[in-house]
């Protein structure tokens, strides 16, 4: 299970990734598998919680990695590779959702699929229920915080907003989720410890 990233380790990982990316750019195609291994779980979960189905998330994650591979020659490290990859993921999922054009009914579908999806339905169900309270942008912000431990500036790069706006939106989504807790409508998890 992936642990939340910490800044020091993140810097090291970024440095290493930058070099692997460089190798791929040099034509060492195989080095790309290291990149896939590093990001496949968070990218898959990012797609899963945006798209709502495991099958679609798997397909989307594959397409995202392929797209990134095809464009990696044009990647220049004015942003991190991670942010660049998530920008591709965000655009890809946004396109899929647009095509589906059933935006607001999405989360009803989530729940149905989650129930039949095998492992951990009860757990992801609760996550889906809470995410359903959020706007598409808020969901993206929350997912980037959760999966990559991004700060507001890093999220801003991915979602194309300024960091102050991201912070505002994050505070708003936190309030929304907090309100649910107080109303007691949706309770999260059965914590085994006091740490959230």
């Amino acid at each position: 299970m992936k642990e939340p990233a910490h800044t020091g380790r993140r810097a090291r990982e970024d440095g290493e990734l930058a070099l692997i990316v460089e190798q791929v750019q040099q034509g060492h195609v195989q080095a790309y598998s290291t990149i896939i291994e590093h990001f496949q779980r968070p990218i898959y979960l990012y797609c899963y919680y945006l798209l709502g189905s495991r099958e679609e998330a798997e397909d989307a994650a594959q397409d995202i990695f392929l797209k990134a591979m095809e464009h990696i020659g044009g990647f220049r490290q004015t942003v991190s590779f991670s942010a660049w990859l998530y920008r591709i993921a965000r655009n890809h999922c946004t396109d899929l959702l647009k095509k589906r054009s059933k935006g607001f009914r999405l989360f009803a579908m989530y729940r149905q699929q989650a129930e039949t999806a095998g492992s951990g339905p009860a757990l992801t169900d609760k996550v889906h229920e809470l995410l359903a309270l959020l706007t598409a942008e808020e969901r993206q912000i929350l997912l980037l915080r959760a999966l990559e431990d991004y700060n507001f500036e890093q999220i801003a790069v991915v979602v194309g907003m300024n960091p102050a706006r991201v912070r505002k939106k994050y505070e708003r989504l936190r309030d929304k989720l907090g309100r649910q807790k107080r109303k007691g409508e949706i309770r999260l998890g059965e914590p085994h410890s006091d740490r959230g």
Partner: protein
Amino acid sequence: MGNRTAIEDEQVGRLEQLIRDTPAEVDLTRRIMERYEQKRSQVSRKAGLGRRRWHKAAAAVAAAMLIITGVAGTGLISPAAAEALKQIPGMKRVFQLAGDLGLRAADEQGLYSEPGVSVTHDGITVGATAVTFDGTRVSVGIEREAVEAGASVQAHSLQEAMTDVELSINGQPLNEYAPAGSSIGPFLFPVPDSDKLVLEFSDLHNQGGQAFPEQFRLGLHFKIAGIEEPFLLDIPVELNTRDNLVLAPSVVRNNGNVRIQVDKIELTPVTTNITTRLELDGMTISDMHSSGGSIGFDLFDDQGNKLQMLSGNGTSATGGSVLVQDSRFAPLASVPKSITIKPYHYVYKENSTSEFQLDAEGHVRVEYISGLEMTIPVAEAGQ
């Protein structure tokens, strides 16, 4: 109030934890790599693109290299990029926004022209707002603007939205200038404004190709995601620098089975270009890459200042043991007495040819190859 925030934080924190810990077995590596190989072989069969890709990739590498140190030490965004993001991008000229110190110099010194050509389809205007050509590279600032309310392609950055890029020079395909069997791939470099980018390409005249004329019409053909009709810009280009200094030092160094010769050094107000010929004894260039023996270059002025690396590209025959490379660095403020080229190997982790070692500050470790280092006199040679 404090209590309320604590509850909210706890709720969000727990939700984030649940998202992170979602049970899911994800193993897509093999499938993706297979699909990539499949796609690539189809593309190569169609148009021999494999080779072009390599060139594009090789050139982008160098671009990637220069920023590593900045990125590795500070987290996700280099300080320069972070600073640039804070500024109001809409108000900046595209070369001003570029991380490339050469293009900033071109902007500051007025070594560029403003072609002011643009095309509008479906309410989206894309135009070329700046172009500079210094004899080593052509850089074109491209900008996008929505001119009708509701005409929005903002979901994609311009770099992502722009596809099917084809270039021509005076009506002839760009690749007629490439060495036989090779091709010239343009780069699309993002700047910290997603509606702008820098399109850049170089002739490969140091690698057997033909030099671009001093004045030409650049035809830029491309598509924008979501818009059916292709865009075509006709951009006048002319040499913007008159003070280029070109040296052909032919300095050679040998170290083990590696021989490096510096064929040419071009100093322009926008770029410092070095052309090197690397020859291996008893080993092919691709063997060198796959065994983790790739060689990179750092360039220093006579005061010991390291120059920002910008981009590069190289040509090597399939299965060959000679690699001719152009490596482009930031310009020198004034003509130095000498420059020093320090070739290096990357330092890999034990038992790995893909993971590099980092120092305590997260910088990539390189090992200079002292036997290959060379200091080349410039001032006297150029006068």
